[in-house]
């Protein structure tokens, strides 16, 4: 589904990704862990086409498409979803209008007619339940005045609405209390199928108790330096990131 080869990228003239390789197959859950500033969000942004980031080299294949060649909106329509580490507020644009536009753009891309208002609202009701998101939130402007946790729930709600093939969750767990964490994780698990895949970016092993990864990768200085099963997360939790630094001979 996703094949990243030797990806190198920079932001503001500073190289952040230094030859990153990663392969994700349908049905898999990958966790990416690593210290602050390692390049986790950079990877998420590069994959979703944020043009603040410049590609220096490498390639990314997404379901047979050259991902780096697609516009950000077409990456989304092809089924790539990013749950933002810091979701932005868009005052004046209602959640309903925003999601209706997004869902219908996805449908148009697949030559489907726009959803009827009634069907759309029904779909919204169903998906809201999944993450226990309140109607008082979805009646507001996009993320406006949402608490940190509400913003994260709202990301997963949007993921449910768009039914992506590949979801990248960038620190979706940070800022969540244990109840919210459980709700969000249950939402993500409910959306899991053998045809889609998830990349979970996180600092803490805590989330991985709920969203169980098939692989754990450690991203350090813009490269994946270690890959193993879910036990790697526990080991990392125990030994801390200094252990990685030592392993890297620093």
């Amino acid at each position, binding site marked *: 589904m996703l094949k990243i080869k030797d990806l190198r990228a920079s932001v503001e003239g500073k190289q952040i990704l230094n030859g990153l390789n990663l392969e994700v197959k349908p049905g898999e859950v990958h966790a990416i862990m690593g210290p602050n500033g390692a390049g986790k969000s950079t990877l998420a942004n590069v994959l979703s*086409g944020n043009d603040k980031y410049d590609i220096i080299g490498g390639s990314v294949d997404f379901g047979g498409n050259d991902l780096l060649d697609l516009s950000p*909106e077409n990456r989304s329509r092809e089924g790539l979803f990013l749950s933002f580490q810091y979701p932005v507020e868009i*005052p004046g644009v209602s959640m309903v209008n925003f999601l209706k*536009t997004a869902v219908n753009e996805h449908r148009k891309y697949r030559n489907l007619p726009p959803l009827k208002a009634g069907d759309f609202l029904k779909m919204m009701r169903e998906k809201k339940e999944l993450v226990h998101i309140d109607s008082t939130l979805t009646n507001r402007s996009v993320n406006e005045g949402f608490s940190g946790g509400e913003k994260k729930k709202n990301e997963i709600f949007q993921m449910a609405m768009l039914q992506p093939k590949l979801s990248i969750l960038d620190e979706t767990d940070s800022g969540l209390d244990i109840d919210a964490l459980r709700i969000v994780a249950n939402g993500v698990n409910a959306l899991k199928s053998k045809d889609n895949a998830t990349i979970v970016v996180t600092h803490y092993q805590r989330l991985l108790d709920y969203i169980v990864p098939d692989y754990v990768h450690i991203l350090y200085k813009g490269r994946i330096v270690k890959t193993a099963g879910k036990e790697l997360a526990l080991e990392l939790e125990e030994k801390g990131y200094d252990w990685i630094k030592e392993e890297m001979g620093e």
Partner: protein
Amino acid sequence: MGDQDKLLNEVTQREYQYGFVSDIETETISKGLNEDVIRLISSKKKEPKFMLDYRLKAYRYWQKMDMPKWAHLNIPEIDFQDIIYYAAPKSTPKYESLDEVDPELLATFDKLGIPLQEQKQLTGVAVDAVIDSVSVKTTFKETLSEKGIIFCSFSEAVQEHPDLIQKYLGKAVPYTDNYFAALNSAVFSDGSFCYIPKGVRCPMELSTYFRINASNTGQFERTLIVAEDDSYVSYLEGCTAPQRDENQLHAAIVEIIVEKGAEVKYSTVQNWYPGDKNGVGGIYNFVTKRGICKGDRSKLLWNQVETGSAITWKYPSCILIGDDTVAEFNSVALTNNYQQADTGTKMIHIGKNSKSTIVSKGISAGKSSNAYRGLVKVGKNASNSRNFSQCDSLLLGNQCGAHTFPYVEVANNTAIVEHEATTSKIGEDQIFYCNQRGISTEDAIGMIVNGYAKEVINKLPMEFAVEAQRLLEISLEGSVG
């Protein structure tokens, strides 16, 4: 140039969608302005003597005036002798059915997306279409006349209701008001007249579409609306103009008189040609609009969406003379590329318990300049009067400018005057967030801008609201990409 600006540049760089010239035969008189030209205009229009006298007085007054200088507008020298002051479509019979109308004209309306036929049948809007200076088609007249409502071209009103014209002409905007009001009063060509008798609620929205057509013809439209005691009317005015390379002067006057207990809602969507992306061409729009809430409990609402013109100078104003009068000004002004706008309102409180509300939403993109200029004045007898003003600016990119100049003069200490202002920017991160959900940059900007402006758009009559939303999107195309 930052990414945001690149983005902005791309979306705003599309050509003006409504820029086309229709090929209707036009009769014009030669360029230039003097007393003989004014006599000629008046005689071509077969006007009674009081009209000619009014025009000549205005002209003589204008000659003694100088063109004003404005702080936030950069206006090139205008050669008033290089303008044609009168153009009429050749032979102007009144048609019984659309079949008789010049097909070229109908095609023009089709391109604008406002086919007369459909307007008539579907929306129940009476359409008095003004192409250039003479009205071509008036509909729904009969329904209206049953209720005693007069809705016709200004010229026709001068012929058929000279007493009303003489009574109200220049009462809200005297020709001495300002340079362009004096010029308009001297040379105005045509426009609309609307009269709602006592106690009558106008059963439909009244609307007029204006277009500049003949090349190089200054447009001097004149609208007069009179609402007698306890009457109601919602009046719409909107326009689009064909693409031109020479700058065109447009100096209209709108006067509204609201009597006791009456309510007038005046909505306009202004989309004159703004010039190309380099700022070449485009209309100069110097408009004087003023309403008088004359009787007690009278109410006047100005709703406007301004997206056009190279230069806009316009302050629809209200004079609240009666007690318990209410006035509102709701405005969205969008500027892009090299457009300049200096708009706002004046609320003059004279009556007791008079209330006014101002909501101004400026949107600036490209290298444009967008200024709000408002005056709230409370006279010494206007006890317990209130004003609330909200002036917001939205910026796209960092090459444009937004300015707010609120002036307040209060001479009565029981009055309450409040002012709020905000400035915000459409951020790249907001656009990327939309992109990541599958929404293109253009749609994202359209969505954000319409969300920002919706408080004002919602005040417009339905069919206008839809047109206005589309217009905001079209006007920003090429500004972000």
